[in-house]
């Protein structure tokens, strides 16, 4: 199991041909108190860099972009009733959606944890 990161502060946990996607702890700190998460519908096919989800804090709405292309297999319904999970457990329980990896080459452009740490330092 590998975890990769994007420069837009998303994480992807790769398990076989499925990636679980969320936003990083750094991102949730920048956003502040999350009050609403708008998730994509399961079955939707996302193109890399397309707006896939929205995270809203008291003050503002921020887009979450698809880090890779593929079909949305499952979304985390728990975030609808408990958006504050994004603040308390961004890189764990507050995953956003699972996506079927359409093109493994797209993973090549992502960062490992050390590179992401350097990116946010």
């Amino acid at each position, binding site marked *: 199991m590998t975890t990769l990161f994007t420069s837009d502060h998303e994480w992807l946990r790769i398990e076989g041909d499925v990636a679980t996607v969320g936003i990083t702890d750094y991102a949730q700190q920048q956003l502040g108190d999350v009050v609403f998460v708008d998730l994509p519908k399961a079955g939707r096919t996302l193109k890399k860099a397309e707006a896939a989800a929205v995270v*809203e804090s008291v003050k503002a709405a921020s887009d979450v972009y698809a880090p890779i292309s593929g079909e949305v297999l499952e979304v985390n319904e728990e975030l609808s009733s408990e958006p504050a999970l994004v603040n308390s457990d961004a890189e764990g329980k507050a995953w956003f959606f699972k996506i079927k990896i359409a093109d493994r080459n797209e993973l090549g452009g992502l960062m490992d944890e050390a590179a992401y740490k350097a990116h946010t330092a």
Partner: protein
Amino acid sequence: MLARDDIPLKRTRLHALHVSLGAKMVPFAGYEMPVQYAAGVLKEHLHTRQKAGLFDVSHMGQIALRAKSGRVEDAALALERLVPQDLLALAAGRQRYAQFTNEQGGILDDLMVANFGDHLFVVVNAACKGADEAHLRAHVSGSCLVEPLADRALLALQGPRAESILAKFCAEAPGLRFMDAGPRKVAGLDCFVSRSGYTGEDGFEISVPAQQAEQLAKALLQDPDVLPIGLGARDSLRLEAGLCLYGHDIDTTTTPIEAALEWSMQKSRRQGGARAGGFFGADTILSQLAIGAPRRRIGLKPEGRAPVREGALLFANQTASEPIGTVTSGGFGPTLNAPVAMGYVPTQLSPNGTQLFAEVRGQRLPVRVAATPFVPNTYKR
């Protein structure tokens, strides 16, 4: 920090204190202001409603208006030419909400006017203060001196504990009622204290000599019930209280009647009143008061959890191609634990309970016209 046009941002006297308290500073109305502190917008909002919050609002304009005759009545009459409010009847020691109007009946700014016995004390919005001063000079300088009080800072202490906290520094504070205002000693300093604010909570605004502002702010923050509150929570608090934000909910294109602010216009300035009209835009404003305005500012409660924000278009139904209105303020109300918004709609769609739809990211979300304030105010009347 630079503003968009590379003009250096101004700082209030409390800038160093904000930074030391962990504030995130942002540009606002030409100033570098705290948008939030370490606690974050949500906690700051809830703390203000539960205990007390301290706000630095020193960016706002404070102006003394003195009649050359020395009679405060002459200053009141001069200022009445610029606002649709009765200021002559404003008693010494009292404060009132008002609007500067233009010839079309639009709102140039909203303001607070207090009668300090021998002169008027006016508080205006930061973004408008230069234009407001020029407007005052252009129209009242024949009979009045317009004196911007640039050497004063302005603090707001808001929330249910505000009275008992301020009482420790100003024994007279508990004796004030909502909209009482006047010079008072606070911690021995020459302050102007009013029982008012912009949160819907009981509370006070304290004008303090700029040099002593930090000293007073630190003294108030010593109380464990007081948290510093940034502009983020100031905005969510005023939104829940149903209060207008100038430049968003009201501007030069909205009249006081469209903005549902006719409660602030006393009878004497209305048709048939002792000093009816006589302010800019009176024809439009008094006609709208008599026969109704084409559109009205209304409160909106989204039925789902998604915040509906400023700029969202409003539709009469799911399929209509033409919008019927716009959201002018919107976000999440932490006390309600639900989204809330304000906007303008045609008057026939303004009754409470009317179902409308707001377009958010291409989707039509159901919203309902709702009474404001969304959270009941707790003013000590």
